[in-house]
């Protein structure tokens, strides 16, 4: 017989366990990935995580599709850079507290915009967010005193008074600062989902009319979520300012807002940790794949469309779908068909992307004939690679179609619950 108190403390320990594990992971990550640019990439991932999580407060939890979320991040970032520059003139503010200021700026802007944009969800909300986004992006060029015109505003984080002797000169110091704020933000956002208003946000998303009849003002619930999302976007903006030390009009542009939507949706909007996975995946696509090919945005876009069409719950949704077969003890039924389809699928993807890259190479770099794709170097002006790649693409596609039936059957079998 377990006493009440020990069971209670057990529960606390159990609910704190994910946080302790993620803290440890964040601490040891720089020791695992020690390569040249890995800290830079991890910093970028951290910022994108906060931004995507904040975006998901709107889209995933509140059902509000925003096309202008970069506004709150950008404004928070711009103010943060200006403060970094003011610090030199005697304003005392340690760098680690800067994200808080950025967050308050985002919150302030969200309280103003949200007061009229959250009356309706759906298309009206999306259009207001688009309008505000375009408005701010366009005024960037006009109001040069604040936004710095085309070259943007730059600062220097090392001018801030040292915190416990740390001056944030190296990237790794910045990494731990970002990691700290990522954890704090995610924890706060998690707590928000547990509050009554956080729960009601889901209700308002799914059935606004019913939520209204129960006695909640859907507008008020949306407004609170919106302000919260603005706050965390501002934090992300200030982190961006600390990491890159420059903000330009690009940070406020529609492109930035679109990227966040892509990252969040690919990760999975229906899950709390979906955006984290999306942010990691998207930033890796952007940086690692971006180094390999000019066409990374095309591939990302195709992945995005496929996600919207066939896996609306995102990557996280695909993974969690396997919980039922696992519970039923039938997950092993899926291993063989998955392994079988993986090979032709990889061949198909490799063939198709190589064809695309090859065409791109021939069209835009015609003076150079040698090309390296997937660690293989060959001449692009001979016919043989084209035939091989075409065969790989078509063959892989055909075999995939044949094996897909097996996967579907195995999936049905693995999810079948015996009556009895």
């Amino acid at each position, binding site marked *: 017989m377990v006493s009440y108190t020990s069971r209670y403390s057990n529960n606390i320990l159990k609910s704190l366990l994910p946080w302790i594990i993620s803290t440890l992971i964040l601490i040891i990550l720089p020791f695992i990935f020690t390569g040249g640019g890995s800290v830079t990439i991890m910093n970028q991932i951290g910022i994108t995580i906060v931004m995507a999580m904040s975006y998901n407060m709107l*889209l995933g939890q509140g*059902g509000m*599709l925003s*096309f202008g979320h970069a506004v709150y991040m950008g404004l928070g970032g711009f103010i943060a850079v200006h403060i970094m520059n003011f610090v030199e003139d005697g304003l005392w503010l340690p760098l680690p507290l800067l994200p808080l200021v950025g967050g308050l700026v985002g919150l302030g802007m969200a309280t103003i915009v949200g007061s*009229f*944009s959250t*009356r*309706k969800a*759906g*298309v*009206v909300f*999306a*259009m*207001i967010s*688009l*309008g*505000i986004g*375009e*408005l701010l992006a*366009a*005024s960037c060029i*006009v*109001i*040069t*005193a*604040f936004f710095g015109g085309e070259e943007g505003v730059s600062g220097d984080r090392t001018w801030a008074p040292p915190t416990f002797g740390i001056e944030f000169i190296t990237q790794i110091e910045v990494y731990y600062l970002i990691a700290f704020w990522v954890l704090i933000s995610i924890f706060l956002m998690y707590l928000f989902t547990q509050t009554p208003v956080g729960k009601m946000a889901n209700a308002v998303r799914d059935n606004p009319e019913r939520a209204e009849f129960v006695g909640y003002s859907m507008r008020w619930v949306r407004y609170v979520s919106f302000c919260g999302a603005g706050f965390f976007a501002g934090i992300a903006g200030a982190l961006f300012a600390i990491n890159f030390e420059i903000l330009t009009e690009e940070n406020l542009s*529609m492109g930035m807002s*679109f990227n966040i*939507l*892509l990252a969040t*949706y690919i990760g999975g909007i229906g899950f709390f940790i979906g955006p984290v996975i999306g942010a990691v995946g998207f930033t890796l696509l952007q940086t690692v794949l971006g180094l390999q090919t000019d*066409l990374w*945005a*095309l591939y990302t*876009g*195709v992945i*995005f*469309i496929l996600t*919207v*069409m*066939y896996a*609306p719950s995102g990557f996280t949704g695909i993974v969690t779908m396997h919980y039922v077969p696992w519970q039923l003890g039938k997950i092993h039924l899926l291993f063989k068909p998955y392994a079988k389809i993986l090979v032709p699928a990889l061949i198909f993807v490799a063939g198709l992307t190589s064809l*695309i890259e090859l065409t*791109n190479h021939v*069209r*835009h770099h015609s003076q150079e004939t040698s090309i390296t794709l997937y660690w293989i170097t060959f001449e692009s002006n001979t016919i043989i690679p084209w035939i091989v790649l075409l065969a790989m693409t078509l063959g892989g596609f055909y075999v995939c179609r044949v094996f897909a039936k097996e996967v579907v059957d195995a999936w049905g079998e693995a999810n079948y619950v015996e009556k009895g």
Partner: protein
Amino acid sequence: MDLFIINFLDGLIYGLLLFMLSSGLTLIFSMMGVLNLAHSAFFMLGAYFAYQISLYLGFWVGLLVAPPIVTVLGALVERYGLRQVHQYGHVPELIFTFGLYFVIEELVQYIWGKNFVEYRAPESLDFVAFTLAGGSIQAYKVFMLLCSVAIFLGLYYVLARTRVGMIIQASLSYPKTVESLGHNVPLVFMGVFGVGTGLAGIAGVIAGPTLQTYPGMAFALGSIVFVCVVVGGLGSLFGAFVASLIIGWMKTFAAAYNVGAAEILIYFGFEYPDNVYYHPWRDLWTLTLPQIGPLLPYLLLVLILIFRPYGLFGRRDA
């Protein structure tokens, strides 16, 4: 006065061009409840297809062939993309069209490169139609104007006077009833989506030479078209028409009259600062109307959505 007339004509041409885009968009919206964010991408495709065809067969063949290709593409997107996403609800549909916009833009860059392409007006229309005290109007612009008016009249005729138009109008409000009368409503949806995107394609074909054909042209016009549709009232063709004209004139007149904020501030008794480039309010003092011109449509959009969320002529709340 002459400057006024020239700008009036320019604004009218631009407005009618916007209407070609916004009419398709609003038709699609009122039918399917989907705001097609990829609409301007189809506009761009129209221009690029026409350019590619004009390289081999000339402008006029491009004008005839490119829009049907865009129409078929649009219909295919509806049939195999949108219908699949429809089951998840309206927000995923919106996100799908957004993703489509993104992919089409990248594809255009992949196929035609990132630079401007040489898509020109036909030589037969390369002369000055008439001059008005210093300003001249190109014959091609007159041709654009005539095209737009013809399409507007044609669209009106089809929707208001033909049997097909009646079925479309009926399926706007009572899709279930129309279906039970034996009409194939999904086919109507596919057709409307195709024709809507086809209209955007025509707009691209005839606007490509004047607005220039480059991968950013969808982005440049995309948001403005949403402004037209939302300001006019979602689902209202007439509203889209009025809003397109308003925004067309707004754009050309703001660009033409160089009114500076300094003049207004001095009029109200403020003193012009000595060294304006280091003044804290320098942006306000040096502000001019052409500078804030691009901002005005979005300002209008936000104001309309705050004070009249269903737009100027919209009947229902979106």
